[in-house]
């Protein structure tokens, strides 16, 4: 009786953590797809790395109980906690060093009817810029 109750508590706590973690992981992936430019996408990826990963690993630790498996899962959580901000900073730093400009100011997702002009407009600009530079250099 008592053991069964403990098992139910274990199951429900683990389920809460796993469902929450999976939600944050999926939200991070959706954000990486939806957000408009590179710097804002980094934020969504960071969300996956922090709360999503930690919650999933916590759920698994609850399942594993007191054992070597849970120690190893704790080690994974610790490693991700330390390395993911460093990797994020390295990616952003490299992009900043390569003079990738962030889009600043307010942004709203385009209404479906407006999608084509918004998407087509930046492309010729991007192609035109290098040409202009080469012309200046040639002169």
């Amino acid at each position, binding site marked *: 009786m008592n053991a069964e109750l403990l098992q139910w508590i274990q199951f429900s706590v683990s389920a809460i953590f796993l469902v929450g973690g999976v939600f944050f992981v999926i939200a991070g*992936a959706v954000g990486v797809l939806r957000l408009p430019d590179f710097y804002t996408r980094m934020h969504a990826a960071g969300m996956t790395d922090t709360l999503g990963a930690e919650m999933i690993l916590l759920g698994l630790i609850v399942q594993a109980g007191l054992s070597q498996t849970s120690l190893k899962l704790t080690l994974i959580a610790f490693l991700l906690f330390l390395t993911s901000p460093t990797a994020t900073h390295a990616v952003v730093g490299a992009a900043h060093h390569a003079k990738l400009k962030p889009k600043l100011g307010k942004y709203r997702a385009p209404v479906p009817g407006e999608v084509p002009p918004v998407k087509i407009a930046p492309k010729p600009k991007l192609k035109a810029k290098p040409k202009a530079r080469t012309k200046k250099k040639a002169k």
Partner: protein
Amino acid sequence: METSLYYLNVGSAMFLLIGMALLLGRLLSGPTLYDRVLAVNSFGTKTVLFLAVFSLIIGRQDGIDIAILYALMNFIATIAVLKFFRYSSLDISMERGSGSEEKAP
């Protein structure tokens, strides 16, 4: 009880796979190089989580060791790739005290 835990783990593994598939979209369509690096890095994090869940599904500890290795390799791979992009060489020492400002050619 065992079976409900099993189905819980299988379900979260499936959702992790869906998240990885979404990231593959960004990896294939990323307009800049850095978007792709970001997608690979995030994909690697999800792979670690998937391996951890998967090793509990099959009930063996070996998957967790692989997940630890994968977490470390993913980090080192990201740093190495970015260092290569930034300095266009891996043969530059990043010793302490040499400063973060690049003295590279």
